[in-house]
């Protein structure tokens, strides 16, 4: 039992924090929210140079061979910095999926480029009428001769507008199968969806996109199993981002409570504000324990459906409470565009809905409990 970070993890955390303080002021975050691309490629390059896009990949594919747990420590700092862009999509949804189920050829052709920051990946799962349950997918990969033809619409595909490859979960005869689709293929149409924070989600229409068996990712009809593992990693990665954001909200709010004076005293000396801060602190500690434990279990390859869902359900709700209290403490000033607090309020609601809402993960918990 060890709730502490290793020396390397501490160092990674510190490096990341310093890097983002220097390279990603919040003013830039707000500008990027208006940018069609949504992230600065130069920053992406620097992150790749720091070894982050390949952090969790084996050395043979140009990575650093760090653990998933290490990766979540980096994601915490990304969440704290409100980093926009396709990092989670590329590394967690994309590269780790290829690592998990891809062929040696696929790994060799894709992963080194990810490590070098030259590729952006993502994954398409949700649809207009199905979000969590593959058995209601309508996007289909029809087997015709030596080809597969994918048709249908996927929703909420993160960062598809800048992706080089999209992993698509499609119905096949007998189950769900994953395919690795070149985003420049004929018949792939991408439309940006409205955003709350700086996130970028797309509607991706597949209009008879032609693929071969070599584009299949993993075995045929095994997609539902793969998706479950992907969702575990993605949900925990999102928790880590949200945890980082929550830490920042806690610190900002406490600092403001110390600085702001009303009726001749710092507002942080009033019991109401103190108790808001205390409630935030408990929510935050809960987020940290649950996220890191779930990350450790994923990292160790242990069965973790229950722990991941408990974590995502807690973090989703706790971050909502925390960011509401953050606004409450900051008062009207945080309502201004110039302020940073609202970035986290927005991130929290987007995060709650991403990779399984509290409601969805609650149902997983129910099943795991035996209900």
């Amino acid at each position: 039992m060890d709730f502490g970070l290793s020396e390397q993890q501490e160092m990674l955390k510190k490096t990341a924090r310093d890097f983002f303080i220097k390279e990603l002021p919040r003013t830039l975050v707000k500008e990027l929210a208006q940018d069609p691309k949504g992230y600065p490629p130069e920053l992406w390059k620097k992150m790749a140079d720091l070894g982050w896009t390949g952090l969790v990949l084996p050395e043979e594919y140009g990575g650093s061979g760090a653990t998933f747990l290490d990766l979540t420590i980096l994601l915490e700092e990304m969440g704290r910095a409100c980093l926009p862009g396709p990092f989670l999509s590329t590394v967690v949804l994309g590269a780790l999926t290829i690592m998990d189920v891809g062929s040696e050829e696929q790994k060799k052709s894709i992963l080194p480029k990810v490590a070098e920051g030259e590729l952006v990946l993502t994954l398409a799962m949700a649809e207009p009428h199905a979000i969590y349950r593959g058995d209601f997918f309508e996007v289909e990969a029809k087997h015709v001769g030596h080809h597969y033809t994918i048709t249908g619409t996927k929703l909420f595909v993160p960062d598809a507008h800048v992706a080089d490859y999209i992993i698509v979960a499609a119905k096949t005869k007998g189950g769900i199968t994953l395919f690795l689709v070149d985003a420049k293929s004929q018949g792939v149409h991408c439309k940006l969806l409205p955003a709350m924070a700086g996130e970028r989600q797309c509607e991706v229409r597949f209009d008879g996109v032609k693929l071969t068996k070599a584009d299949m990712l993993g075995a045929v009809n095994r997609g539902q199993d793969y998706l479950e593992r992907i969702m575990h990693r993605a949900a925990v990665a999102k928790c880590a981002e949200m945890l980082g954001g929550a830490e920042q909200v806690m610190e900002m709010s406490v600092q403001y409570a110390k600085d702001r004076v009303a009726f001749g005293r710092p507002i942080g000396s009033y019991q109401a504000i103190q108790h808001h801060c205390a409630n935030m602190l408990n929510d935050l500690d809960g987020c940290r324990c649950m996220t890191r434990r779930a990350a450790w279990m994923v990292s160790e390859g242990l069965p973790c459906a229950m722990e991941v869902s408990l974590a995502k359900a807690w973090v989703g709700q706790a971050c909502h409470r925390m960011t509401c209290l953050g606004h409450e403490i900051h008062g009207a000033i945080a309502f201004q565009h110039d302020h940073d607090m609202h970035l986290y309020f927005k991130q929290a609601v987007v995060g709650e809905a991403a990779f399984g809402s509290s409601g969805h993960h609650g149902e997983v918990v129910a099943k795991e409990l035996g209900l």
Partner: protein
Amino acid sequence: MDFGFTPEQEAWRQEIRDFLKDNPPEKFPTQTGEDSWGHGAFSYEFVRLLGSKGWLSLTWPRQYGGRERPWIDLLILFEELAYARVPWAAGAICWSMSNTVLDLASEELKQEFLPGIGSGETMLWLAMSEPDAGSDLLAMRTTAIEQDDCFLVNGQKVWSALAHLSHYGFLFARTETDPKVPKWASISLFLLDKSLPGVTISPMTSMLGDIFHSEVFMDNVRIPKRYLLGEKNQGVIHLTKTLEFDRFWARFPKPRFCQKILHDLVQYAKETRRDGALLSQDPRARHLMVESAVEIETCRQVFWNVGWKIDKGLPLTYEASAAKVFADDMGLRFFDRGMQILGPYAYLDEADKWDRLRANMRRWYLWTAGDSLAGGTSEIARNTMATAGLGLPRK
């Protein structure tokens, strides 16, 4: 006890509904914001139409163009407008300020201002908060020094709602700067003409990315003396009253406004399939809608209770603060639930009948982050409930 309405009241409600059917609010151009009461939409055209109906001066004395209708009729009007989500943001606040004009202004000022307010030509904004005087309003620093035939005003206000679209500020400023004079006896109330030299309105971009509030800078602004409202140095009483009214009136429409959205969500859930089942049959979505229904309607009844007290002329102590807390807590929870019900589909971009609901829900959700701060923080309002309402000791 009687929780029903008279036939006359029901007829009045129907008259408003008919008016709104004939004049669909969504057809009016807006100068700011989109769809919805209390969430930033404002349309001159619509408000002036209300004015032309005489509905902006419904309760005023006839001599000022009013109809002397009882407060209950005004509450019914507010409910119907809220349910129809008309573009009249800050309408209730403007209305409550005009009431103070009726109470305090000289006959001359009344004649000068009330016709314009009643017709919807003249809009008032509240110039009260300052950067270092939020909850602690008595800390305000803007000064208004008597000089010849005017008051010389210097200072800065923030969070002046719709000041960029309005004409006159309802300005609180310090008219007594001697530190030995207690603060509560040093503040006065003015009507500030936006077009006076030295007034700068600087719109504030909100976290939603658009403009609702402004900063107001006053640099040697000379307000003619006759624009003093009430007695000099007696502004704190009006400040308190304005705040109390603001708390009640600005939020009275909220439960009914939320109820309309809830009804839309119900309809949406009945027509939306997800993962093989109707969303209306999803246990969590049902639960979220039911909890909302209970809270919203309870909130509505609490507001009607206060409205009835006002109508009866009963004294209020804690009620406006309590209603504010109730409404803001309710709203925060409701719009969070709304986002949960929509889930990721809140971000869909589909030209279907639910597109406005989705777009608005994202917007409303963000608005709620500021709700509990508007009209004084909920913390201060709870203090008021405990001390003024329940008699708990301040120290």
